[in-house]
């Protein structure tokens, strides 16, 4: 139970960022198909220690049978924002799942924001993501994940049959939080695709379901203002303190991708402002 991920083969994306004077530098970089990585950007002039990297996919999506691994290390005192330029389509053949594994490490004083755009679940898609983050000392992180339901029913007039035929096969996202070697929280979301597509299913008519985990010291007052920032975008959002004092989590439902993007930006901006004392420059996509 709750064993660490087995040692992977060489990850398709393997990077390390370390603090060098005022800036955070990319000191190790291995990127293989299907990933492409931009150069680091220093988007926040007042906080040059924050490096921003965009991950891109050159394959046109995430395919059944793929098993991709990403490893990211953020060194002592460094700060990295790792994001994507757009949502990722998860293709489906109603067979094997598309698997992605992420191993993240943040050393004392470090900060990592991993905020990918949501995965778009196409008909028959089975998506399985497993993320493990190891935080040391006072390291902090913001992790987001989400799904966007491809909506064939909208094109065909909302018939229940069309919903069923266009449904994904399955969605699974597991995030394990380790602080100084101890597992302190394990977020395990799993649902059958047809349940996601049902009009009376747990999405309650929304197309996007997302989560954010803010791993650090979060007060009750800050928790509420974080929730309010997400809710102000029109999304349904609810925040809660997580087990083991490891931080706070936020669940979010949005009617479409645009609403989710506004909410994700608000969620990121709030955490960034709390951490760095200034609002972030908008990350263009």
């Amino acid at each position, binding site marked *: *139970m*709750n064993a660490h991920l087995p040692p992977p083969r060489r990850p398709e994306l393997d990077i390390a960022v370390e603090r060098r004077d005022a800036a955070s530098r990319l000191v190790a970089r291995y990127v293989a198909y299907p990933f492409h990585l931009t150069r680091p950007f220093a988007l926040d002039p007042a906080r040059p220690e924050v490096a921003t990297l965009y991950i891109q996919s050159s394959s046109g999506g995430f395919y059944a049978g793929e098993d991709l691994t990403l490893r990211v290390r953020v060194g002592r005192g460094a700060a990295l924002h790792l994001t994507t330029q757009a949502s990722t389509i998860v293709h489906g053949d109603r067979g094997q799942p598309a698997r992605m594994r992420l191993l993240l490490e943040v050393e004392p004083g470090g900060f990592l924001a991993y905020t990918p755009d949501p995965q778009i679940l196409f008909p028959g898609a089975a998506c399985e993501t497993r993320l493990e983050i190891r935080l040391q000392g006072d390291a902090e992180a913001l992790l987001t994940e989400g799904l966007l339901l491809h909506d064939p029913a909208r094109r065909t007039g909302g018939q229940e049959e069309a919903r069923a035929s266009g449904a994904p096969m399955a*969605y*699974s996202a*597991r995030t394990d939080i380790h602080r100084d070697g101890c*597992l*302190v*929280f*394990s*977020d*395990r*979301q*799993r*649902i059958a695709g047809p*349940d996601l597509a049902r009009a*009376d299913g*747990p*999405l*309650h008519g929304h197309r996007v*379901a997302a*989560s954010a985990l803010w791993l650090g010291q979060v007060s009750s007052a800050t928790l*509420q203002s974080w*929730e309010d920032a997400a809710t102000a975008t029109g999304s*349904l*959002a*609810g*925040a*809660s*303190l*997580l*087990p*083991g004092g490891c931080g706070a*989590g936020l*669940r*979010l*439902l949005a009617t479409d991708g645009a609403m989710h993007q506004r909410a994700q930006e608000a969620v990121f901006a709030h955490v960034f402002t709390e951490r760095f004392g200034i609002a972030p420059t908008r990350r263009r996509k």
Partner: protein
Amino acid sequence: MKTAGLLTALRFGDSAFPGGGFAFSQGLEGLAPLRGATPDADAVAAFLDEQISHRWGPAERVTLVRCHRAAGTGGAAADDDGADTAMDEGALDAVAALDRDLDLSTFSQTLRRGARRNGAAFLAAHLRLGTPGAGAYRGRIASGAAPGTLAAIQGLLWRRAGLDETEAAALAGYQLVAGGLTAATRLGLVGALGAQALMPVLLGRVADVVSRPVAADEEPSGFSPYAEIAAARQARLPLRLFSN
């Protein structure tokens, strides 16, 4: 279900049994602020159906069933005054590990607290009744070795009280439905007869979920963002009837 099991389930499922679940709505109280309107009977039923299908079924029920199995690996008649056999210590340690796993995989703080408080009340009743294992498990909770979630303690103590795995899971599902409808009644969302009218469909869902096998290594999981958002909203209400 054999007659003895049926009667034991009726005993523990009776609202007169001092299990302590009356103080919890499992997020139902937060449904009105989330919807922006008072939920009607259909909304109450849908909320509970979602809890059964997408949270309790794949999460609490899994822990309950696995704790029930683990509880059977030790001495069911272990002395509660501290003279547990080494074999029973191992069983209780296994239950404690499953208990911790459920607690650390529960997103919502109010639902985590509710599960612990419900578990404490349930354990207190069985402690006074002398159910085998109750005393030893309380020691684990007191020492911090186990959080004492309701589902884990149900699995342990209902096994020790003679319920089989299916009976224990069905009883827990029944209590989830009955407790939810009682909360809905107290919140004025449905009347007593209206609550009873919702029972058959919801208990049918429980029966369906309970019939699904639990793998030996299955871990609690789920997908209930709407209920978790409702629980977060409930926690911010200035006036609350329930703890969650």
